[in-house]
């Protein structure tokens, strides 16, 4: 999602880039100042730095691009009830110059994806304030990090219900409503104000998501709803189903989303075999993937980021999970639509890092 959003951004001029970088730096310094000012009561509560660094290659309809990207994440507990967390994205996009010219054009982007404060108010309630990822369906707030997603590209419907930027600026209540051995129910409800800030762009909106999880069958079913409270005032509806059969490394994930002008779905399956020495054998590290997705326009008004015409796409992937939190991602996709069929080839390598911000106290 993040990659998709930034890739779609217009080429910024140098002064705007420097301005944005200065703002990013100020935000980062502010976050670090909060972290450094904090006192940590427990040895296990040292702030952490995590995230992913990746090098991605993409050839879409014959147009090739290369993208080194780093997505650092910082999480710092304050006292017994607070957590400050933030994720940023820094990337450079290189594409060969056209018209027979040699060399590459490049654009860059640096910005905060979110910056939020979490207050663990009650055993079943967390209050979130700041800039947060909108919890509509599952992709935006659960699968979008570069070190988590199986495919480089987000689903075609990822823009539905996420209000263009994917983030809200305001408040959110979330938590586990019920947690039993046989089932659990979680919820998230939020309100976002309109913000034109360069780093924290958002639209005035509100929404809710709830999910039921059945541990015995490893089945998750969820519903989402949100509403844009400015401009056209559109409603968005979503549903997701995840299934991971017990004692297998098979995962099936799916989402449906419906907006005022378009709707669509995706279904993704991935599998790792345990039959030849377990998941960490050289064969068990292979992860074949398949994703099917379709989008349908309900009218000709385009305001949601989905393709302009009905589109079908099949993605075939093969990832390899190397030791030391490194993954090789490869995929081939065929996209069908009345505006033309295209092939999309993607390869990349992603490394996930996770370490304390400093050494911390010994236990």
């Amino acid at each position, binding site marked *: 999602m993040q990659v998709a959003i930034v890739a779609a951004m217009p080429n910024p001029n140098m002064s705007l880039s420097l301005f944005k970088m200065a703002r990013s730096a100020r935000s980062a310094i502010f976050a670090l100042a909060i972290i450094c000012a904090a006192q940590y009561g*427990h*040895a*296990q*509560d*040292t*702030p*952490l730095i995590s995230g992913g660094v990746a090098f991605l290659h993409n050839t879409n309809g014959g147009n090739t691009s290369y993208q080194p990207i780093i997505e650092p994440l910082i*999480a*710092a*507990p304050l006292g017994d009830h607070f*957590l400050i*967390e933030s994720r940023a994205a820094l990337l450079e996009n290189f594409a060969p110059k056209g018209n027979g010219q040699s060399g590459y054009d490049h654009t860059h982007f640096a910005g905060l994806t979110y910056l939020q404060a*979490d207050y*663990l108010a*009650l*055993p*079943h309630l*967390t209050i*979130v304030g700041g800039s947060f990822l909108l919890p509509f369906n599952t992709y935006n*707030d*659960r*699968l979008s990090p570069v*070190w*988590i997603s199986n495919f480089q590209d987000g689903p075609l419907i990822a823009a539905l219900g996420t209000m263009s930027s994917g983030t809200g600026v305001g408040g959110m209540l*979330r*938590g*586990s409503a019920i*947690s039993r051995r046989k089932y659990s129910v*979680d*919820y*998230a409800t939020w309100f976002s104000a309109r913000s034109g800030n360069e780093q924290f762009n958002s639209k005035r909106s509100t929404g809710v998501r709830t999910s039921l*999880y059945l*541990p015995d069958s*490893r089945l*998750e079913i969820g519903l989402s709803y949100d509403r844009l409270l400015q401009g056209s005032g559109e409603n968005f509806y979503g549903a997701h189903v*995840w299934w*991971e059969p017990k004692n297998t490394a098979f995962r099936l994930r799916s989402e449906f989303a419906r907006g005022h002008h378009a709707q669509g779905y995706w279904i993704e399956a991935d599998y790792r075999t345990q039959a030849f020495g377990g998941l960490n054998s050289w064969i068990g590290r292979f992860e074949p993937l398949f994703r099917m997705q379709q989008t349908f326009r309900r009218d000709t008004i385009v305001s949601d980021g989905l393709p302009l015409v009905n589109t079908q796409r099949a993605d075939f992937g093969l990832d390899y*999970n190397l*030791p*030391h*939190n490194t993954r090789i991602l490869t995929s081939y996709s065929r996209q069908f639509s009345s505006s033309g069929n295209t092939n999309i080839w993607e390869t990349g390598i992603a490394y*996930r890092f*996770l*370490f*304390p911000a400093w*050494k*911390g*106290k010994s*236990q």
Partner: protein
Amino acid sequence: MSQRNFLVALAICVLFIPPSAALQAQSQAGAKSTRQANKKQPTAMHNQQQHENEGERIFKQNCSRCHTAPEGFSPNISGTIVRHMRVRASLSQHDAQELLRFFNP
């Protein structure tokens, strides 16, 4: 006394009390303490096992649903990871505590 200290004390008792009891086979008190120690050991072990199983279950059902587990991390950040996961995966306070016990048995 913390649970860890208690388990260390219990382990020392388990290691040393049975030989002492054998040497004092005729001693009623020695036999009694041995019986108590043996009785406590399975209970404590059982409780610890239960916590580990519960924590492992929560880890598998919540964290692994979205991402593969990292290949180890510093114990200094286990509490921060759990707090982060509590927000991201909407864990209850009880589940977060069990997860922390699983990370720091």
